[in-house]
């Protein structure tokens, strides 16, 4: 909504916006303990004081694979801490840019944003720092498998 505070971050080379209300803090990411057999978009867990955060690799959570296209972007040493359903997550992004205010409502663009982005994006939002893709936190945290299930169900 107009006037809402947004955290602007780069994910997979695109400018994205998260509601500042969702973002509890921005932390320096420490050692990440990997979780064997966990979905690939979960990078591991890291400690924040006495709390364990699940580290989400946002690029993979969107459904972009690693390898050639994954190494194109640098990863910020900072991560945005969010909570969803009582669990805390640290979002690993390319970079955290700014906190700014939204200039209008999130709106659609003709042609959509592409399959990976459409799943997690509520729309395009104009901000003081330029246009950004407004992200739906719950959809992002659901991971790329959620989309695949939906597609399978539709087929």
């Amino acid at each position, binding site marked *: 909504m107009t006037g809402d505070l947004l955290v602007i971050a780069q994910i997979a080379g695109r400018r994205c916006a998260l509601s500042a209300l969702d973002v509890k803090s921005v932390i320096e990411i420490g050692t990440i*303990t990997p*979780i064997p*057999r966990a979905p690939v978009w979960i990078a591991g867990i890291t400690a924040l004081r*006495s709390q*364990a955060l699940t580290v989400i690799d946002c690029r993979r959570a969107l459904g972009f694979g690693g390898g050639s296209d994954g190494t194109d972007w640098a990863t910020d040493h900072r991560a945005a801490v969010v909570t969803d359903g009582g669990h805390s997550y640290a979002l690993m992004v390319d970079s955290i840019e700014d906190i700014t205010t939204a200039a209008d409502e999130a709106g659609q663009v003709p042609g959509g944003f592409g399959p990976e982005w459409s799943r997690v994006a509520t729309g395009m939002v104009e901000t003081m720092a330029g246009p950004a893709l407004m992200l739906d936190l719950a959809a992002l945290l659901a991971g790329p498998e959620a989309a695949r299930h939906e597609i399978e169900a539709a087929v």
Partner: protein
Amino acid sequence: MDDLLADFIAETREMLEASGGELVAWEADPADRARLDTIFRFVHTVKGNCGFFDFPRLASLSHAAEDALADCRAGRREPDQQLVTAVLAIIDRIALMIDAIEAGDEFPEGGDESLIAAVDASHETAPSGSLTGVKEGSNPPLHAPADAMLGTGEEQAAPYRRADAAAAQRTIRLPVELLDRVMSGVSDMVLARNDLAHRLRQAGNQPTIDGPFERLTTILSDVRDAITRMRMQRIETLFGALPRLVRDLSAELGKQVMVDLDGGDVELDREMIETIRDPLTHLIRNAVDHGIEQPSARLAHGKREIGLLAIAARQSGNTISIAISDDGRGLDEDRIAAKAIATGLITASERQTMSRDKILNLIFEPGFSTAETVSNVSGRGVGLDVVRQNLEKVGGSIKVTSVPGQGTLFSLQIPLTLSIIAGLTVDVGGHRFAIPQSYVEEIVQASARALDFTRMGETALVTFRGNRVPCLMLGEVLGLGTCEIAAREPTLVMLRLASGDLFALAVEGIHNHGDLVVKPLAPAVMRSGLYAGSTLLDDGQPVLLLDVANIASQHNLMSDTRVRAIGPMEGEAVVTADAPRAMLFTDFAGRRSAVRLELVQRIETAPASAIDRSAARPRVVIDGLILPLIGLPEEALTIARVRLLRLSDGACELLYAVREVEDAVELKDALHPVPEDPLAEAMTLIGGQPVTLIDAHALFALHGEPPLAAARPRCVLPDGEWARTILAPLVASAGYDILPEGTNDPAAIGIVFDDVFEVAEALGRALPARVIRLRDQPDAPPGCETIYRYDREGLLAALSEANRAARVEGEAA
């Protein structure tokens, strides 16, 4: 005043919850004085409190109910269905009024009189003044019967009163958030203590600090225990409301249902009770609505008219299991399958391969609801998928089993969520994991050889206290790959499951053990089924807590019938049992062969130097036994160690040298006989490759022989200090085992003093077959085969002579 009012509301609520169940129980058994007393106390308390707060309507309602109940207590009136319903209606009205008072609303006027009249309707034997007494709101007429009752019933009521006095503890009411804050504070305190402990260890021993630190530790663990108990609540608080729920439901649906509650004393985290309240209610609604049939239908099927709904809670280790079973019509597999296909959950072809249990458990899938008509009772847009979701949110699970026509059983597994547990941290593949201490039976560190570590197909087995125990490689379970060294020198954590099953978890090393503050994990991580939570180590490193029970059940190690019946392993297990299995290997001729698995005792590894090829047939000494060896190449071995299959037909054993042991496989393909090769039972295909199956009969006929003890020669020594201290070391260093005198071993060589020998011979006592006689004098009397006892060379020569004779005799035999 506001505080007092809030207390009144809270107290009344609590009693309301408890009395609902009591009322139904009382209705079922009107003679039950304890129940009647509880309900009477409730209305009596409400009435008393109302007077204090000036709620005239509440007062008159509770007054009327109290009156009626007092009559029942005094025996002036028999409690009947009508009375119970009327009292329930009043209690419901009281609950509504309490809600209104709390919200600060005005409760709508009217309706009270009819309720009061209903209680009074069947009040034939009551004193005529009772109702008017209520209307006037004067106390004397009311208290008279109550007092009278108390006066006459004093002795009778005494037992109940004593129980009440014991149960009545001084309590205070606290907001749950405050408890949570204290709890997390204590959790952080434990972390801080652990950190301090870590630093103290690094700094070395400091007696001035260690003492107080120990005290701090003790105090902290006491506080922790108390806090944990503070958060625990008996599941009774949840069960209390259920009889009323079932009663109302069954009345609404025209069914007759009896509730059987069990395990109310099981304690559960307060929050957990709140979390399962709705799922449990939903399942009970379902059972009464869909499960239990109409009385007429039940009679037609030869069942009792009254349906039975049993709810039982059990604590097993770190989980609470709640079973909700009804004896209704059971789940309709075909209808569920049809519905699942219609909603696109599964395809028709998938349905063909699915077991009944898997189909039944589809009812928990999102978007599934079999009830065709949405009734008032169940199916209010909340499906069983929500039930499962809610349970999974707290790390629980739900499963259903059902027998058509006999009933349905829902089993819920809920973690205790004791947020601080004792745990063990282990290392594997560079990662660190925690295991709840409660599962750990023992830690075993030994070589694979000592543990008798064997691979049977995909399953590894170790021998622990004489039992073969399945062994999981933690590295493999977690997909980290396993390091060969770890497999050879594993550290085994023996884990005992709640079901009593034991299994071993092979890890690379034990890191530490101590208190772990367990925090929940994100649902996406929980879904892997391997982890129960996360925790922070002393150094602040986060570590994952393994879900031991789930890992065991994923690998079919839990002998719980419920678990065994579920999952895709069932079908495979049947196949495994049917197909004969064989050990696949490559021999030194490069031929791929197989030998039936039952013959393989174990796989041995022997150094090439241990093979004795001097005789016509090569032999190897293993575990003190000389065993024949076959399968060796003609030329000398180039490798340092040889893998040997130890085969046994029960009596005879032989070793088969192989170049490489591949795997245990199933003999699924047809066996083609090979008459031209006497040592081959058949040819078969394994993984598309031809393999020779060794003919065990021919093999043992040719090479089998009972194992020969390769033990050292034995020697029986005479009694006495001299023999023990001077003779025994000499004989032992010559390579003999010493047996105590009197041992009757025909193969042993006896050393005796000549005088003893003569006496024994004269008396006809049993002597060893070969005897060396010793004499005390250096000079031998002529014609006597004795050796002077300090004649070292003579003695050793005699020993080896006797030993040679014994061996020749043994081989001839």
